[in-house]
């Protein structure tokens, strides 16, 4: 059996609310980070409110599979990745990832975490497809998703609106047969 939580550079963990709230408090102050990862307005929440939010969302986890990302080398917590099952009957989930600590961008950590979450989705959840959306200006994410096997499926025109600019969002997907073909895993 594979070690599902361990990649080449990072591992997937589950952190207690105190630890996550502290990390989010720091990461949320970096608005570029927020605006790359999310389409909600950037906000600053107290550590207390974040902790309560994290505790509350953990109660309802039958369709969400959230992990934190830690570097193998020094065990540093750098971000989060997860799958949100859109439908068990259609075996589809949405994927989301953010590397909150900008010192760890462009070093392959995020891509390694994406590889792990795809493996988790296809080997443990037995999904048939995994989908994601990203801002058209997030070139780093696009490269990472292309590298991990996602295929472009469309573009929503002007879906986002920031700094007075209406920009597109991009939508990608990977089917389980595509993932198996590229990883060489046996079905």
């Amino acid at each position, binding site marked *: 059996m594979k070690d599902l939580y361990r990649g080449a550079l990072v591992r997937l963990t589950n952190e207690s609310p105190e630890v996550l709230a502290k990390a989010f408090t720091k990461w949320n102050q970096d608005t570029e980070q927020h605006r790359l990862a999310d*389409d*909600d*307005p950037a906000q600053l929440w107290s550590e207390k409110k974040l902790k309560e939010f994290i505790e509350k969302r953990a109660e309802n986890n039958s369709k969400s599979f959230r992990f934190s990302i830690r570097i193998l080398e020094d065990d540093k917590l750098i971000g989060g990745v997860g799958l949100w099952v859109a*439908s068990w*009957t*259609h*075996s*589809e989930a949405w994927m989301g990832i953010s590397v909150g600590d900008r010192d760890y961008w462009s070093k392959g950590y995020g891509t390694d975490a994406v590889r792990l979450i795809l493996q988790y989705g296809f080997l443990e959840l037995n999904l*048939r*497809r995994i*989908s994601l959306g990203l801002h058209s200006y997030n070139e780093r994410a696009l490269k990472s998703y292309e590298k991990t096997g996602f*295929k472009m*499926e*469309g*573009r*929503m*025109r*002007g*879906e*986002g*609106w920031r700094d007075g600019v*209406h920009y597109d969002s991009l*939508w990608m*997907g990977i*089917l389980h047969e595509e993932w198996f073909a590229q990883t060489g895993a046996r079905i």
Partner: protein
Amino acid sequence: MLDIQTQLFEAQDVRFGPIDHETHPEIESKWTHDAEFMRLFDLKPARPLSPAMVKKQYEAIEKEVDEDKNLFYFTIRTREDDRLIGKAMIEWISWTNGNGFIRLGIGSPEDRRKGYGSQALTLLLRYAFGELNLYRVTAVVPAYNEGALRLFRKFGFMEEIRRRKALNRDGEFWDLVSFGLLNSEWRERNNGRG
């Protein structure tokens, strides 16, 4: 041009109205016993609902309208006899980005192919663009729903995303098609008036 004399909720043969908690549950319960309707309207597994369950759903909808402020829900009725024939909604609105998702359905087969859906969509788009001031709307349609594909193409929606094999029904895989229409495109089609 401001056009407040033209009613937002009235078309030629249909109009929008609120939910009627007394009479609508019986009617909608009948629709849910038609698996075909459920599969055209929703991606969730079809299941028949009792009038009591429909009533609960209405309460949940009104709670969501009240608390989340990102859902607008209308019942579609015939103007002639105020009969409930369908529902229409704008949901998951992102106010900061100016977009929302639209969805509408005509409940019983006898009421389909009579132009009611087109009239309801006309009302829904005017509401989304003229009243809510959205920048764009999105409509997500299973590739097997040919009536809906035709309807949105007729209204000038552009096919923007095709999520490959996103649906599994009757042992077959179907794409999920996502259509978009911009406020500016809608305005142009209506000669600037909406």
